[in-house]
């Protein structure tokens, strides 16, 4: 453990005099209408599809349709139907790789970048939103906030073991800066916003 002591010692000898931590400014939240508008606009700009709904009925229909079409669909939201128990923490990536479509609840959405917060409490397995071919996230309109500052006030990153902001489908521009949707993760992201 000597490197640990050496590093800490070197840092304490070489660090500058203490500088106070800046106060975090208060960023005022915008009104809900403009937050919703901005969220939708940003989401569409980065390749997500947004559908606004009044209740769960239409999502349930989508889910049933996908299943009827023979797709391997995983539901994790109790409002849609009994959550799929075949997927859990111990599911192997080989099995998860076969999933076509997953339905996952998002805790909140951020208007400035259309990122949606999802953590362990929303998922039976952390790999699910990445390894499925297509992803559906459901958020309630009342959870939308303007910026990342308000988002961090509302979420607790530490509450579960893992959580992520997900903004759009997996993408890359590594080949001559050409944008390609569907790198390793989900090839598409559909966001249902429940009012």
């Amino acid at each position, binding site marked *: 453990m000597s490197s640990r002591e050496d590093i800490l010692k070197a840092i304490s000898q070489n660090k500058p005099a203490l500088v106070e931590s800046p106060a975090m400014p208060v960023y005022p939240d915008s009104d809900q209408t403009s937050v919703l508008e901005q969220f939708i606009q940003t989401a569409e700009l980065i390749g997500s599809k947004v559908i606004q709904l009044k209740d769960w009925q239409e999502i349930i229909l989508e889910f049933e349709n996908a299943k009827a079409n023979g797709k391997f669909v995983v539901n994790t939201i109790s409002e849609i139907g009994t959550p799929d128990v075949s997927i859990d923490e*111990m599911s192997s990536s080989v099995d998860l790789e076969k999933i076509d479509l997953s339905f996952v609840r998002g805790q909140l959405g951020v208007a400035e970048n259309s990122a949606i917060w999802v953590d362990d409490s929303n998922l039976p397995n952390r790999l699910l939103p990445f390894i499925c071919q297509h992803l559906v996230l459901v958020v309630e309109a009342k959870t939308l906030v303007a910026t990342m500052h308000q988002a*961090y006030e509302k979420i607790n990153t530490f509450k579960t073991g893992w959580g*992520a902001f*997900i903004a759009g489908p*997996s993408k890359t521009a*590594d080949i001559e*800066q050409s944008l390609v949707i569907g*790198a*390793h993760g989900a090839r598409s992201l559909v966001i249902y916003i429940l009012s």
Partner: protein
Amino acid sequence: MEKFLKPVEHAVAAEKFISDEARTNWHDETLWFVRAKRDKIVHKLPEWESLRELGSQIKNHALSNLDTYLLAFEKNAQANGVKVHWAADAKEHNEIILEIARKNNVKKIVKSKSMLTEECHLNPFLISKGIEVVDTDLGERIVQFRNEPPSHIVLPAIHLKKQDVSDTFHEHLHTEKGNNDPQYLTEAARQHLRNKFIEADLSITGVNFAVAETGGFVVCTNEGNADMGAHAAKIHIACMGFEKIIPKAEHLSVFLRLLTRSATGQPITTYSSHFHRPRKGQEMHIVIVDNGRSKQLGREDFRNSLKCIRCAACFNTCPVYRRSGGHSYHNATAGPIGSILNPNINMRENADLPFASTLCGSCTNVCPVKINIHEQLWKWRQVLTEEGYASSGKTAGMKGMAFVLSYPKVFRFAGKAGRWIIRMFPGLVNNTLNPWYKQREMPVAPKHSFRDWYIKNKKA
């Protein structure tokens, strides 16, 4: 440990890069396009400048209390069930990873992009020990197939054209010859890498931000490769330079707003993953690396460089980087910020880098945490020259200039002689022996100096 090859000097490597003029222009324009995207998106945020200032101040504070924050981070991470390791240098970093791999009988590793592991030359080390290491970021995978280092910290294969990628994939993934469609090529990589994710025993990721308050860390990707690797493998190792520490989770809001807007002009990366505890049945490790960073912390003039959040905005805007390519900087981190960080690690081998700049200040202007990049490059030039690391040509030139500029009469004579020679015998200066003639036309020499003109016209 892989031997460091004696690097080719930046100017020599750049000369090779720019010999293909069309490609140089394309490289320049492509990066400028990214810089323009950055401008467009940051101007949408009225609070952008105050956000930069806030990011800079948080980093100043974090650096001034770094040891305390690292200890808090360690304590909290351990309480979360994460194993924390400390590495003084690249060698120790690599050995810690090898030991974890050996203990668990690991044969296959997937890695998401981590410039720190590039800095430590982890891949060749593990491969030499018989372990398969696959880079999973598309750009990194492309350069790995080609046996090249990445040329940019955010866009690792930015120096390559579609045709190059197509040829590389044809050779390694047996894709159709001549099919240059990025969609087709990306799909081939997706299929290939999905198998690698599923087979891997261990996943290595970098760390974008480590939070002292919670003992957690954040990893940002657009492709989702860090998450695919980390959630599929039974062991996850995250490698971080110790300067990645920020005090609190609420500070993440500032840095996540700054990072991707500066990097690629996106509002945020597709995935910003917050890791705190391993999942059931998983092992999670964090390796905290020094490798020269504590020394840089002690260099007052260069300490600010440790605030860097690796967005590469300074690369994309740099007129020298855009026209010389990342490989000419012969280090994992190229561009203006690399030219400050690398002389700290090895002065002799990186003495050329601070001179690979016009000192125009564009890098400083776009830096999201307000690092005074061009001033530090200028300071490095002074330090390196004083320490005797500047090239002999530069040293002789500077000595000559110092002599000429110290004696007004000599200065006047030299000016007169120079003007006369350029007028009468242009061939003496317009030849390749004169470094100023390379890629440039020499100016037309006036008959008289400004001083002559001034004396003559002063009275009028």
